[in-house]
């Protein structure tokens, strides 16, 4: 299991999910699953966050919100796409207002499968993200340049 010295904070945003994955993400933070035992705290402020958890496929209005949130997060940062909709667009792929998975907008580090994704799978995904976060942090420390902000191209 990956280990991260500092306590990583998590920001959750619902891109256009059916709520199924959202409540499972929230369930991870409550008793029974309790990701706080890994030192993970849910925050509402992107400037405090290290991990961006996105549920649901990306549609037109949320595209800009996601970019906005992502660009406000300090480096190092990782993106976890939770559920099939966040991965590919899922069952809503063919609808007129959906652009597709989260990777149409942002670089995604971890994909969590499931419809709805199970809390166990979400926790596995977040723990995997911690390892990537650590690698990114080490690279920054060694003098690597901060990746540029992701621009939205219309």
């Amino acid at each position, binding site marked *: 299991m990956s280990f991260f010295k500092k306590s990583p904070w998590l920001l959750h945003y619902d891109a256009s999910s059916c*709520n199924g994955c959202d409540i499972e993400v*929230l369930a991870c933070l409550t*008793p029974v699953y309790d990701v706080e035992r890994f030192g993970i705290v849910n925050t509402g402020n992107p400037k405090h966050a290290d991990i961006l958890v996105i549920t649901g496929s990306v549609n037109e209005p949320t595209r800009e919100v996601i970019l906005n*949130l992502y660009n406000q997060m300090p480096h190092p940062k990782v993106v976890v796409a939770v559920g099939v909709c966040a991965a590919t667009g899922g*069952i809503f792929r063919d609808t007129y207002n*959906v652009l597709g998975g989260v990777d149409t907008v942002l670089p995604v580090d971890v994909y969590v499968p499931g419809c709805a994704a199970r809390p166990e799978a979400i926790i596995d995904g977040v723990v995997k993200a911690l390892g990537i976060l650590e690698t990114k942090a080490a690279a920054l420390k060694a003098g690597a340049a901060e990746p540029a902000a992701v621009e939205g191209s219309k």
Partner: protein
Amino acid sequence: MGARTIIPFGPQHPVLPEPIHLDLVLEDEKVVEAIPSIGFIHRGLERLAEKKDIHEMAYVSERICGICSFTHGMGYCTAIEAVMKIDVPERGHYLRMIWSEMSRIHSHLLWAGLLADGFGFENLFMQSWRLRERILDLIEETTGGRVIFGSCKIGGSRRDIADDVMARLLKELASLEKDCHAITDTFMEDSTVAKRTRGVGVIAPDDAIALGAVGPMLRASGVASDSRSLGYALYPELSFAPIVEKDGDCWARTAVRVREIYQSFDLIRQCAAKMKPGPVDVKVSGNPSGEYWARLEQPRGEVIYYVKGNGTKNLERYRVRTPTFANVPPLVHMLKNIDLADVPVIVLTIDPCISCTER
């Protein structure tokens, strides 16, 4: 009088797991107007009816919203069954009612936790969600899913509950019901909860009707209206009366939902007692031709599924009017002349579900 300030509320906000945007127009600390703007979760799934056939649409329908998922599937199937004149076997109906009442308990406990979080009672939030996990375990044991069940299909139920599982389920539900009192007593009797909810966001009965409120919103204002009284599925076989409170404030809405949790426990027991062994589904062939408006009671209120078939395997039109959509005008009404600090509590007491509002 102070100058007017506009505070944007959402789309990304800590009290909202889902995005909705409100422009709150303030004079000092008072909200004088709230202007909603929706569409962050709009996917356009009604139009999927032209790409997916009627049986596949049952899955799409369940994914309108992950909280009321079962009722969404059941409502869609009820509408198609009414058009195609399919007679679902009794046991199929009882199973559907058991699952829809179980999802009502899960939804109300989830909502109770979010409300507690909204007014800063972290412990109550965690306790509500701890109890909710137990009902999810039972749902998972009987359907295989935690939030999306997939157990409802056109013509009946995809799964049956074996007798020994049912016995265990009833035993666990009885123990859960007893444990629920610990949190619901806090909601009903705690003075800090009352301070944040009593007299806040009051809606008069006439206003509630005029503004089109549904579900616990309407019943908390003293109007006895519950679509389960319409008699879909086999609700007429059960002893059931809508739960009504009279104050119309946030506390009354909390009280309606708290009492509905216990009502649902009772309805599940009644179903289990009346269920007889038998088939759970019938074979379905052919395509729907005609139209029907199926009305069901979700945890959030009355929901309408309109289907219009033209004899092909794709529907000509599938439309869902969800309870939160109907509760947007009452919400806008309540958000006038209140303190800014009360906004989260008022928004939460309509039990917002944005993904079903916008589909």
